[in-house]
């Protein structure tokens, strides 16, 4: 049966007509163009280039940014876009999150006029792809200790170091790279043809297979002076980007959960065991009811956070809660849906296992589940528990 998003508390009635139209535009595109091709893309381990083109044509890249070719939509609309993209695949949503929130946003927020004019219109149209290099092989949850460094050579900067796990890296035209200049974290715009820069693709993933993940390697990489983001220093730079992306993930996870719920419901109604549909058994209904309950709570969380993003009354711990909770619920729903599908649940004929494997990455990136617990723990107690001296 045709997909209709679960909306038990009628959240749609709280959205503007424009927001609903944008959601439906992305939903229809995902239905027609992504779902028929996603399993093939995963099997081949590719992000189809036509999706980049289509996202640019639809105008959803950098959706909440205003000016420089960006539409300036509400954060609510941005959330809905993420939700629909991730109903297709977390890899697709990752592409859009990285492009908009992690690559375009820092240029928009911390860049100078020339940088904004040079990069943003081409990135909004999808012509140029961006990536975001923060994580390093030895520094994941604690990026503050990163090794990658920049040196001021008078008429240029010299970058040395390596980033790992970088979404879109190999296909990117533009990389936002966080590196230490005199011990202080600064953002640099690296272009794909810059001398001393390479971005080999990481292979062998069992998760986010339709997304490109790469290393970024800088060996005496020469960067012109005008490529540093002037208006930010320290972890505030990458963290403010992550706030936006994490907000989007809190919506995206609902999309993945909805896909699994929809499939589980349909399957339970049609699968006959012991002479009756398995949907008629209380244990199965309990699972479906739990899924509905968790999706509904997650929707209200995301919706309320959307309101707060739009009137700028949010704080970072609220985003941590939504990212952590919603990805957690989506992953649990994927596992439960797999169970309801029985053996069929492991086949790529159904979306379940793909979402489940994807969500393992989503649980880890943009702050692991437990890092968000620690952020909230610090909010409650006032005591940071990220690190301590071990004797």
């Amino acid at each position, binding site marked *: *049966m*045709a997909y*209709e998003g679960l909306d038990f508390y009628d959240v749609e009635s709280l959205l*503007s*007509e*424009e927001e609903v*139209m*944008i959601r439906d*535009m992305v939903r*229809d*595109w995902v239905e027609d163009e992504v779902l028929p091709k996603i399993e093939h893309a995963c099997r081949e381990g590719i992000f189809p280039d036509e999706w980049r083109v289509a996202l640019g*044509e*639809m*105008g*959803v890249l950098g*959706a909440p940014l205003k000016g420089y070719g960006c*539409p300036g*939509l509400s954060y609510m609309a941005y959330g809905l876009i993420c939700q629909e993209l991730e109903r297709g695949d977390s890899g697709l949503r990752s592409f859009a999150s990285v492009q908009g929130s992690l690559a375009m946003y820092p240029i928009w927020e911390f860049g100078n006029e020339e940088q904004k004019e040079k990069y943003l219109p081409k990135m909004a149209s999808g012509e140029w792809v961006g990536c975001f290099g923060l994580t390093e092989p030895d520094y994941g949850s604690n990026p503050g200790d990163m090794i990658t460094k920049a040196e001021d050579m008078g008429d240029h900067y010299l970058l040395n170091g390596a980033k790992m796990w970088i979404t879109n890296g190999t296909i990117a035209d533009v990389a936002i790279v966080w590196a230490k200049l005199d011990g202080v974290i600064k953002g640099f715009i690296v272009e794909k043809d810059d001398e001393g820069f390479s971005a080999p693709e990481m292979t062998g993933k069992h998760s986010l297979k339709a997304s490109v993940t790469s290393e970024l390697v800088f060996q005496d990489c020469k960067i012109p002076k005008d490529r540093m983001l002037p208006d930010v220093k320290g972890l505030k730079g990458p963290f403010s980007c992550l706030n936006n992306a994490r907000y989007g993930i809190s919506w995206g996870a609902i999309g993945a959960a909805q896909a699994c719920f929809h499939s589980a419901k349909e399957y339970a109604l049609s699968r006959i065991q012991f002479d009756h549909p398995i949907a008629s058994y209380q244990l199965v209904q309990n699972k479906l009811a739990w899924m509905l309950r968790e999706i509904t709570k997650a929707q209200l969380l995301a919706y309320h956070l959307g309101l707060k993003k739009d009137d700028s009354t949010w704080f970072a711990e609220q985003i941590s809660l939504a990212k952590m909770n919603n990805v957690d619920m989506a992953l649990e729903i994927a596992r439960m849906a797999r169970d309801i599908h029985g053996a069929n649940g492991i086949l790529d004929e159904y979306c379940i296992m793909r979402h489940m494997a994807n969500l393992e990455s989503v649980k880890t990136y943009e702050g692991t589940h437990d890092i968000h617990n620690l952020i909230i723990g610090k909010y409650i107690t006032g005591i940071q528990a990220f690190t301590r001296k071990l004797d």
Partner: protein
Amino acid sequence: MLMNGVPVGGLSHPLEWMVKTMPDIAVLIKRVPDTIAKIIVVDGTIDLSGVKWIISPYDEYAIESALQHREATGGSVTAITLGNADCDKTLKDAKALGCDELVRLWQDGWESLDSNGVQSILAGAISDLGSEIVYCGKAAADTNAGSTGPGVAEKLGWASISNVVSVSFEEGGVEALVPVAGGQAKVGINFPCLLTIDKGPNEPRRPNVRGIMMARKAEVNLKGGQAPAATISVISKSTPPAKPPGKTYHGAENVPAVVQALRDEANVI
């Protein structure tokens, strides 16, 4: 055979000629339940609450033709629908695709118009607007009657072509490709004219964010009009007869019987 450079009467200024060569294009669209919506019948009437509404699919092809026409020759595209305030959303969907003007025809008492009434009102609106070419879907997905396009053309006294699969745009008219027995025919037609559009090689475009933002600000022009007295009355309604139960065969020995049934009864092999 087309009329390149067909004179348009009484022009005095070269700029006026420029303006006049850019046609006023109209496209008729209808709001229908989503073709994949689950239709629930309660006590013999259709319960449409909770159904998602869309632009009738052939009308999407008509919009696509109208927009391509504008892109080829200039001009403007007016989307017209007849229906209550819920249809504003349908018009806004058309705006999001790129239509310029939106017109909704409605007044109290138009809930139960027959097709003659609908065609008269649409024809009246088209002549008020001064449109030179009208596109519409070959049939609406709800009634599947296919009478609106030819009926409107008849009322306007215009030429029309039905079931057009592709259009090429000329000055003062169009060339339309239509299926005919054994192939396709290319038919030339001068303005004013009406084309009903079938699925063709040109897939309807998708909306984009920019279009949707324009749609939010777009104004819908509401117009009333004169409807003729109904000439059709519905005598009764009934649901389709229940499908006869299928036949079941068991065992390999029945294969010939199944093959025979598929060939002689079902006519599928």
